[in-house]
Each structure stands twice: as C-alpha cells, then as structure tokens.
C-alpha cells in the first residue's frame, strides 16, 4: 500500500460560459439548429465561450497530510474540490484517491426545513455517507456538540440561523472518513462556535487523517495546515510548507486599494483604502502618524445584526490585531444602502514593516464577505526618537513599556 492518498495527473476542467449565464440548452434551440444544419455537429458554440477553470494540475498528497488550498477568486479551488469529491468529472486528466472520502462542501446539505432536528441528523448523515447504525451511535455526541438538545424534536424551520448551522456542522464533524475534503465551511457560526469547529478540525487532523481544505481565512490555514497548494488562474502556482505559501499568496495580491468586481447582490465590501488622519488617501503612511482605513460596503437588502471588522496581518499572514464594530459597540444600521466606515489606528502603534489588511462583513450566522488581503501597505518609521535604533526593533507593535534604570543597590559594604 503506497503512502499517497491523492494523486492528480494533468487534471483540467473546462466550463462553457455560453451566450447567457445558463449552460443548458432548450430543446427548441437544438431542434432549430438541426433544421438549419442537419449534417452539422448540431453545436455551434465557439471555443471562445469556454473557460478552463482548472488547467493541467498535477500533484500528490501523502496520507496524514493536512493541506490548505489557497488562491484568489476564480483560481480553481472549488473546482478542484468538486472533482476530487466526484461531484463533477474532469474534462481531461485523472485522479486516484486511496481511501474513503468524506467531503463537506457545504454545511447542512440536504437539510429539510419541515423535518425535525432528529430527522435531519439521520437524513443529512445518510447523505454524507454515514450508515444508519453509525448515526444512531453518534447521535448523542452530535446533539451535545450542536447544543440543541432542547429543540431536537422541533422542525428546523423554527431554528435560529445559529442553531441551524451548529446542528449542520455537528453532523458533518462526526463523519469519520480517511480523507476529509472541506470547502470554506469554517466561516459559519459565531466566534465561539468557530473556535469549536477549528478545534474539531484539529482533532481530525491529529488522528492521522488526510485533510484537504479551502479557506480564505489565512489564520485558519496556518493553524490547521501543514502544507499548502497555491492556485492561480486554474494552474498550480506552488506547493510547499504552509507559511511561505501563505506569504507568497498575500504578497502576490498586494494592492494599495481594494475595489469589488461585480456586485453580488449580497452584503458586500465595495472598497477599502488607506487614508491619513484627515481621511485623505495616503500611499506611504508613517508609523508615527495616525492612519486608517476607509471602507465602503453595501447592504442590498435591509438586514439587521451586521458587523464589520478589520484585521491587520503581517507579511506572512500572522494576525497583529483585529477590530470589529461589535468590539466598540457600534451598530451597523439595518437599512438597505451603502455605508462608509473609517477605522483609525493611532500613531506609534505599529512598527515599520509590510502589512496586509483583511476586511470582513458577518452576522451571527455566517461570514457574508471576507477580503483577505483587501489591501497591502508598507509602514515606514516616522521621525521620532522612539525608532532611532531603526530596524533593530523586533516584532510588530510599539509597546510603551515602563522603564527605570539606576545603579543597583549593593548590600556588600553596608555598615
């Protein structure tokens, strides 16, 4: 038995992006084409209407490895997971998977709102590939993990979004495959529950199982993964230990300003920009001056309980600090419109260096939009005696330590 869990050879996936968004045809269309060109191939779509979501990817993942897949939007992360989970077939290439696969591309797949929590546990478990007896054996553990014991015989349509997500994740967390494939599912639930989920993923990884997961959350990737795959535009841009890969990903996406592409119709971060103390755009801020971030976001529909948060990361993705609207008791209004927030960082907080900004919109139930990194910036030392030693100062923050220095009292020689 070899120690390779997943072997991928020249995997490629082509999607047609026809005239419209829909990729299926209508019968009328096809019949019409046949009538016009009875001896043609019946398909007149040009090659230009195709996109290679995944292009010639080859790699190997060893048993017991925990691999994070990172890359920007449209890099092919989800397509790779879909092929490895056998949800869709590749256009070219092949993959061999040795071991039972459990894939979790969404939390709560197949949950039915009319059924009770108990019924949904069994249904969802069966969909994820658990045997009925196995579910029955783990039932109590699942209910305890989800903290929904009191409502287990209530239809899940009456659940709060938090309860729903907890129950759904609890079922999935008790799946015990040899190879676990997970897509961005850690973005659900409140902070406490997310910690619990991360802990559970840690446990899974520690039992020697192979884990392959996609996340936009670099802190989660660094915490869980031992190695990382970096995808760019459908191609494999690099593989290796997780830290350098994350640094490369963050570095490769260094922009001075973030601007959203198309509107998603969901709560969305539209723009993020580095500004000085007066709100004017600034390119090279000094660490002695107050600087901050101007963030515009939109709520297309009225929605309450939205929170906005930022995180400042070092060049290699370590979180220096975070700040959320809920930390400072600022309530985001529920009205459907665009908002602008300014988050200011007082001078003399950070040391000089390269930093990334992450911006996140979320509510109690889920992460609505996360841009990591939204923008990147280099902080330079301002003219201050504090930084006279320059690059000799290590670390990232300027802690105002209390100092005294005086000749030490000597007991020797006292009368």
């Amino acid at each position, binding site marked *: 038995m070899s120690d390779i869990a997943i072997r991928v050879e020249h995997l490629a996936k082509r999607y047609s992006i026809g005239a419209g968004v829909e990729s299926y045809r209508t019968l009328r269309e096809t019949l019409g084409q046949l009538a016009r060109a009875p001896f043609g191939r019946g398909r007149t779509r040009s090659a230009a209407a195709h996109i290679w979501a995944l292009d010639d990817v080859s790699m190997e993942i060893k048993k017991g490895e925990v691999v994070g897949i990172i890359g920007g939007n449209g890099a092919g992360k989800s397509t790779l997971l879909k092929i490895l989970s056998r949800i869709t077939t590749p256009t070219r290439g092949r993959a*061999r998977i040795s071991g039972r696969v459990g894939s979790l591309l969404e939390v709560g797949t197949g949950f039915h709102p009319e059924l009770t929590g108990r019924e949904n546990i069994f249904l969802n478990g069966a969909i994820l590939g658990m045997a009925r007896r196995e579910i029955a054996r783990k039932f109590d553990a699942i209910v305890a993990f989800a903290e929904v014991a009191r409502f287990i015989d209530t239809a899940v349509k009456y659940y709060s979004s938090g309860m729903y997500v907890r129950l759904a994740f609890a079922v999935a967390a008790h799946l015990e495959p040899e190879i676990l494939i997970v897509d961005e599912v850690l973005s659900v639930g409140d902070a406490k529950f997310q910690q619990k989920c991360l802990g559970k993923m840690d446990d899974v990884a520690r039992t020697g199982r192979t884990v392959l997961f996609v996340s936009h959350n670099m802190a989660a990737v660094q915490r869980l993964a031992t190695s990382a795959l970096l995808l760019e535009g459908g191609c494999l841009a690099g593989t290796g230990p997780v830290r350098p890969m994350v640094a490369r990903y963050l570095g490769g996406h260094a922009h001075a300003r973030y601007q959203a592409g198309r509107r998603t119709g969901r709560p969305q971060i539209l723009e993020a920009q580095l500004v000085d103390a007066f709100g004017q755009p600034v390119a090279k801020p000094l660490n002695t001056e107050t600087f901050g971030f101007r963030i515009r976001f939109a709520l297309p529909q009225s929605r309450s309980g939205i929170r906005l948060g930022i995180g400042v990361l070092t060049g290699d993705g370590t979180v220096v600090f975070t700040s959320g609207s809920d930390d400072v008791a600022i309530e985001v209004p529920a009205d459907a419109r665009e908002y602008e927030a300014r988050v200011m960082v007082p001078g003399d907080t950070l040391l000089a260096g390269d930093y990334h900004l992450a911006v996140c919109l979320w509510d109690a139930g889920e992460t609505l939009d996360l841009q990591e990194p939204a923008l990147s910036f280099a902080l330079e030392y301002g003219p201050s005696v504090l930084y006279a030693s320059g690059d000799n100062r290590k670390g990232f923050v300027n802690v105002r330590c209390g100092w005294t220095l005086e000749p030490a009292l000597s007991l020797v020689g006292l009368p």
Partner: protein
Amino acid sequence: MNVDVVAVRVPCLDAIVDIEPSSGLRPLNLRELWSYRELLYFLAWRDIKVRYKQTALGAAWAILQPLLTMSVFAIFLGRLAHVPSDGLPYPLFSFAGLVPWTYFSTAVATGAVSIVGSQQLISKVYFPRLLIPLSAAVTPLVDFAVAMLTLVAMLAWYRVMPGAALAWLPLLLLLAIATAFATALWLSTLTVLYRDVRYVVAFLMQFWMFATPVAYPASLVPAKWRVLYGLNPMAGVVEGFRWALVGGPAPGPIVAASAAVVVVLLVTGVVFFRRAEGTFADVI
C-alpha cells in the same frame, strides 16, 4: 450487541477511486448502488414524511385522487357515453385501471423534475445519481398501497373475488415500477439537458393516459393491432393489473410486448443517464 455489529460501515466500499473524464460507456456500479441503499430509503422517507406533514389531507389524498377521477369517468364515460367495461361494473373497472395509472403518472411527474429539483444535493455531495429518479419511482408506492386498500374495499362492495391470476400481481407491480423508473430516467436527464422538456411532460402524460386502457378496455382495440398497442408499456401494466384483480380476458400478448419495451427503455435509459450524470452538477 457485539462490537462487530456496531462497526462502522461506510457506503463507499471501494478503497481506491479513479476519477476520469466521463465519456463513452460507463458500466453500472451495482455494488456501489447497493451500498447506498440506506440513502435511497432516507430520500424516499423524506419525501413521504414531508408530503404527509405538509398536506392537510395527507393519506386521504391518496384515496381521493383516483376516487374522484373514477367518479368523473363513471358519470361521463360509463353512464353517458356507455363505454364498455368487459362486463364489469364500470366504477370498479376504471378504478382498477386508475390505481396503477395514478402510481405511474405521479412517479413520472416527480421523476422528470427530480434531478433539477435536487440541485442542492447534486452540486454539493457525491452519491450515485441514479438514486434520485429511483427514489421518485419508489416513493409513490405508499400512495399506491393506500389506493390498493380502497380497491380491496370496492371489490368487497361489488362482491368480486379475484381469481388465481392474482398471483401475477407482484410481477405486474414490478413491471409498473420498471416502466416508471425507465421513463423517469429518460425524462429527468432530458429535463437537465433541455430545460423546456418539463412543459412537455404534462402534455405527454395526458396524451399517454388516452393511449392507455384506463377508462376503456383494450378489447376496443382491434385484435391485430393489440401487440402494437402493447408497445405502450403502460397498456400492458394497466390491462394486466385489471386482469389480475378483477378478471376478464387474459392480456398475454400485450403484457409480453410491454415487458420487452420496458427492458429496452430501461437499458437505454440507464446508458443515457450514466453518460450525462458526470456533468449534471455543471449544467443544472
């Protein structure tokens, strides 16, 4: 219960899975299908449970639907148009035909949209996709059982005693399930590929019912055309059901022709479905 019995059994028995482009003929993995039988049970159970929870009438609907159709047939076709009924009381005659037909039309109507309707599942989880139309073909069997009980009550009311032909009923039921499943395979795949097929299905079912001896006896069809008539697989199923339950002329040639057609429909349906299923998630 000893430890071995509790041991975890995961559906995907194959330790090694090869993922390749889906082209050409892909053999049916019966072993895998069998290992997923519990999921079939849960999918059917979900649909039954939800239906009976949502509809106020619940089980009563399974009785009312064929019963009301029968009343309409009995008044307009039996009483007014004097459609013959092989010497049986017309209500009993038409109800015996409506029970298998209602099963079939429900199975096909839900089966045709079953893949499109399971978009959520198909785009997020792997399991043999064949289970979805199969579940659509199996689920209406509950309503069928309820309707059969009504039919038994009607037999008692009209004092009709089924003969030895009743022994054929299980095989005929199997033929009905196979017909529904094969039709659902074809229509569900076509509905994914051509989204306007679903509008054709409603018309098709109406047309199909008139081509099936539900409201009239197959004996109305001239004898030399009977086998051709049997090419409609539901003609064999309905005629066979009626024969097994309430007697009448033995429909041998029709049933034989229907069974042959069903086998062809089923094999081609599975091949067609298997070719398309690899990319269901992309086009759905």
